[in-house]
């Protein structure tokens, strides 16, 4: 029986699934659930989880192992992996999902207005790193934690696409 480890919004779920009698019998963190699933076209489906109606569109996420569930008008990212692999990974002391990002990527397309740091700078959480203009608004990209800048990969005046590297940490 397939067993997965799913991480949503900081909460971990241990999920086992089985398909019998045209429905899914699921155990989630030890709680039994019965799910009916009706496809709605493409990646969308209607789930009845213990009779509770839910429309969902599950699509690939930006990272490997990441999926996004569109539900209730929201985009909810989730990381999913095989339960046994997750167990081994944890035993090895590794964090769930990809390691803390060493590369700061552009979170949106736009024009780089300014780069506020230089290689070797030690930055603290919340410190402005790069300013990107999109739709005539300045968007300040800030450090998410403490780190040391290694390489600057962009220049003021550059046009960047979403996901382009802006700078690299050590």
């Amino acid at each position, binding site marked *: 029986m397939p067993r997965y480890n*799913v991480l949503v919004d900081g909460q971990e779920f241990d999920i086992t699934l089985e398909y019998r009698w045209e429905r899914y019998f699921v155990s989630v963190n030890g709680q039994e659930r019965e799910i009916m*699933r009706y*496809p709605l076209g493409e990646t*969308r489906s209607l789930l009845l*989880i213990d009779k509770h109606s839910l429309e969902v569109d599950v699509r690939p996420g930006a990272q490997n192992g990441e999926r996004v569930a*569109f539900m209730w*008008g*929201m985009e909810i990212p*989730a990381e999913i992996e095989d339960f046994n692999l997750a167990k081994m990974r944890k035993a090895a002391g590794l964090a769930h999902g990809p390691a803390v990002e060493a590369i700061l990527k552009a979170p949106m397309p736009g024009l780089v207005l300014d780069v506020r740091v230089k290689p070797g700078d030690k930055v603290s959480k919340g410190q402005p790193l790069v300013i990107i203009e999109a739709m005539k*608004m300045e968007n300040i990209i800030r450090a998410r934690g403490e780190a040391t800048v290694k390489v600057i990969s962009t220049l003021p005046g550059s046009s960047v696409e979403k996901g382009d590297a802006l700078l690299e940490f050590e």
Partner: protein
Amino acid sequence: MSAIRKILIANRGEIAVRIIRACRDIGIKSVAVYTDCDTTSFHVRMADEAYHIGPCPSSQSYLVHDKIIDVAKRSGADAVHPGYGFLSENASFAKRCVDEGIIFIGPKSETVALLGDKLEARQMAMKAGLPVVPGAEIDMKSLSAAHEVADKIGFPILVKAAAGGGGKGMRVVRTPELFDESLRSAMNEARSAFGDERVYLERYLSRPRHIEIQILCDAHGNCIHLGERECSIQRRHQKVIEESPSPIMTPELREIMGKAAVELARACGYVGAGTVEFLVDEHRSFYFLEVNTRLQVEHPVTEIVTGLDLVKEQVAIAQGEPLKYQQDQIKWRGHAVECRIYAEDPDNGFLPSSGTLKSYVIPAGPGVRVDSGVVAGSDVPIYYDPMIAKLITWGKDRNEAITRMKRALEEYRVSGVETTIGFHRVIMENSKFLSGELSTHLLEEEYPDNVYRRLDADMREKAALAVALDKFIRERKITIADGDARRTSSRWVQVHRQDGLRKFGGSR
């Protein structure tokens, strides 16, 4: 003035669609313009005619006066409606239209110029006897002196662009040390957005409400107001939720504020629809803020409670008709709330989220109005304002309007692009919002780290289940497809057909 027969809409998105709808309702032909990014956009699909005007960036398309005028001439449009944003408060474009013999649906270009300059508007308001927020101008030639002026007004202080609007070129400065950097940054943004770096200073009120009065003035000297909208729920000086009436409004205050707005309009010789914005403090004292000489994003809440169609009224005024209503004929009914739906990611600092709307089903039913600029399959381009729709609900009272808003937000089906629907669901549960204790600082006070936790334990579990089920099915595709519910369905149908036949045969 002669009747308008064809209107060019110099805009895109929901407001272009909104104006096209009004054109249909009046029986006027509509002309859309579009760029390479907007070939299949909803406004192009809705208009009677559509003209391509160039590449995606608005600086090379929607903002180019020559292109708009050229299409107006080629299409035979006798009027241009600028919507909001883009050319809507551009006095030289308004003048250009008139020079070319085309009706500009908006106030006279002199009025647009006068009120577009926030400094001049402020002086005009003072002259008309309206209270203004304490503040001062800055001599742009000696910026070093600005610090002294700021110290006199006292911190926290607000730096505002003279040509500003929509929070662009605006900065709150909480302490004197940050003043210089904020001033520079505001000036940069103002120059980039408006080509005008002039800024001025205003005292930053501690818990003000943003309340604005909608006015309508015809070319014959008649001027009325349609009551207020409260737009205190703002993020980064951008309105995100608006309502009418204001929870603190009384008939008396409405009359006083309405009269003040109408007096200012008269003093400016205002012709058209417009909005006079005020800040209102905890003592219900109000201060003039600015005049918007265009249709506001949030105009539907006024339409719903008054029963008027503001775009129709704009067109009637533009073709020289006198107002159809006197002040005492304006009646308000119930309460309307509007949520602006943006393609933005609340989990990622509200950065714009572009892409394709894989599915898009709007809410409907009693008390719900949706002014949407997109449909299923639409692309959300990065080039333009990320607001994709406005969701407006009406109720007998504020409570009913809000419960319907909650329902409508739940009903929305969107996939492919992240939106602020979840953000709005959080606000609709906020106790201060629900109690009507609003201020323009509500969001930053209640959510100081800009984080809106949209998921509860049940939602997280359901998302986890959906993702696990998806992986399970993709990895075991073949086995399952065979036993899918569809097969059951058709089997049942067959059984029924036989049953039905048998039963029928028996009963005859």
